[in-house]
């Protein structure tokens, strides 16, 4: 579908692309990726002749693009940019029908196509047709940007960091949508990004570039399992290692909302508090908040049956293991696992109670390490 045959490009003495050869097959989702200045955007813009190569030929659909009128060529190729570029003076409908209008489609056909496209991404045409881009969220705007590029069903779509400016959740949604559109419509997409996660998620083939050369062109699985050289390994690794839990501290993973009672607290009151909070042991501190020990609910019941108790201080609490809040999280986990504790009390250097590490904290932190989420938010 898209072939780069020995393409070179220089701006003055500055060589941007060197003897680039590429073969992107029909129906492929090809992602160009690399550090900034690697020539990925330049390569993309040469396909629809927004930039002309210094040497070599580019074939689109077996046709030498330099022999096609650039304006005609561009109308046949969809184009989506990071800044979205919806025309602010036009409504959503007018934006989507730009290319159909350029190609002289009759009004009815254009209207119908706009409605069809909006429905395809779950946007109600009645609601959105007459709105202006400034009235839409960034995600909706880029959705329309994609529809605008698809208006005349081009077999090839060029996307230049289309989701780079969107928030992470919207980005994920639009990635899913574009992947689905590409599969459903069977179109070829050339996609530029600097986000390796995005590339791995979307690509059939990842083309990793550096200094105007292709370092490795391979399907994502192969790129990850068999990186060609240190640069590739470093490029993948640096971006994919999102969380390093060896360096996390107890204070970052603990639950700080901990229920404690002082020794002077009334017995009956403590019992009712325990019921309310649904906890099964009391964490007892002295009046300064220093840790004294814990009283499990069974012990409370046992003692309460034998004699009259006025304050918590009259019961001897059990000493249990604590951990300093600046200790390594791994240490807390090891302690919990080895001593088979339900939880671990976190204290500061003055032995004041600051939080709890539970098995839930452990699971969350592990999940975070695996999927890259924040483990410390409740």
């Amino acid at each position, binding site marked *: 579908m898209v072939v780069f045959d020995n393409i070179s490009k220089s701006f003055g003495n500055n060589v941007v692309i060197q003897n680039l050869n590429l073969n992107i097959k029909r129906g492929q989702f090809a992602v160009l990726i690399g550090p900034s200045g690697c020539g990925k955007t330049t390569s993309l813009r040469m396909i*629809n002749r*927004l930039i002309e190569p210094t040497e070599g030929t580019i074939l689109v659909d077996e046709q030498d693009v330099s022999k096609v009128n650039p*304006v*005609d*060529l*561009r*109308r*046949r190729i969809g*184009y989506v*940019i990071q*800044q*979205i*570029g*919806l*025309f*602010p*003076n*036009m*409504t959503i409908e007018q934006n989507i029908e*730009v*290319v159909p209008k*350029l190609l002289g489609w009759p009004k009815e056909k254009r209207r119908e196509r706009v409605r069809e496209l909006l429905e395809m991404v779950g946007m109600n045409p009645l609601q959105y047709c007459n709105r*202006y*881009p*400034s*009235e839409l969220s960034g995600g909706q705007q880029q959705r329309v940007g994609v529809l*605008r*590029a698809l208006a005349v069903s081009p077999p090839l779509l*060029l996307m230049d960091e289309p989701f780079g400016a969107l928030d992470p959740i919207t980005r994920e949604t639009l990635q899913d949508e574009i992947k689905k559109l590409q599969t459903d419509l069977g179109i070829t997409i050339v996609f530029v990004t600097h986000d390796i996660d995005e590339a791995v998620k979307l690509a059939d083939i990842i083309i990793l570039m550096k200094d105007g050369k292709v370092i490795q062109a391979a399907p994502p699985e192969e790129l990850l399992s068999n990186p060609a050289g240190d640069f590739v390994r470093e490029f993948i690794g640096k971006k994919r290692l999102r969380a390093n839990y060896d360096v996390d501290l107890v204070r970052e993973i603990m639950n700080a909302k901990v229920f404690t009672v002082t020794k002077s607290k009334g017995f009956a009151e403590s019992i009712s508090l325990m019921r309310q909070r649904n906890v099964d042991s009391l964490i007892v501190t002295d009046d300064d908040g220093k840790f004294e020990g814990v009283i499990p609910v069974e012990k409370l019941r046992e003692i309460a049956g034998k004699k009259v108790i006025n304050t918590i201080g009259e019961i001897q609490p059990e000493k249990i293991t604590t951990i300093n809040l600046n200790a390594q999280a791994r240490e807390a986990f090891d302690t919990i696992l080895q001593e088979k504790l339900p939880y671990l009390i976190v204290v500061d250097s003055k032995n004041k109670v600051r939080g709890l590490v539970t098995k839930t904290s452990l699971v969350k932190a592990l999940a975070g390490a695996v999927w890259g989420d924040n483990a410390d938010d409740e």
Partner: protein
Amino acid sequence: MMNDFLATLHSNWDRLVGAFGAHVQIALTAVAFGAMIAVPLGIALTRYPKIGQKVIAVLSILQTIPSMVMFGILLPFTGIGRPTAIIALTLYSILPILRNTYTGISDVSDSYIDAGKGMGMNGRQILFRVELPIALPVIVTGIRISSVYIISWATVATIVGGGGLGDIIFIGVARHNHAMILMGAIPASLLAITTSFIVGRIAKAVTPRGLRRERAR
């Protein structure tokens, strides 16, 4: 004083109406010609930004030539009469419109141009469908600034026999007749204020709805 003024107004009413009409005609013609020259020139200059800045700088210097001097330069070529006044005022009206056209078009975000080009618009389509609609409010504001200038400067047209409200003011000055001076000056001011208001409304009306919102943000 007030009675004096009303009496002068009454006895000179026909003269005032004629002068007012001439004033409007001179100013309007000058601004219209000015816009006809400045808008295309301003657009052309955006295509050559290196020259563009220089041309605007040179024109800014021309703008500072006092009108008396300008009339002096033109008189040998165009003689006494309204054409000389209109030519001089046209020259003065060019710069504000040119500058706003140039700025308005240059300020259209590159992403719109890139999107338009990438979708297969040719240069003319990008100009008329994207650049001009987005820049239009700024261009009309230039015309508004120009109109206000030219209406006030048109009072000087009288010294080359151009007519207009300047005639009445200069008669008043020559005769030490304050009522007469006011009779010329007040309509000229009112005309400038009204025009500024009307053209301001036009600028609002030509702002695409989508842009009004964007600017409001």
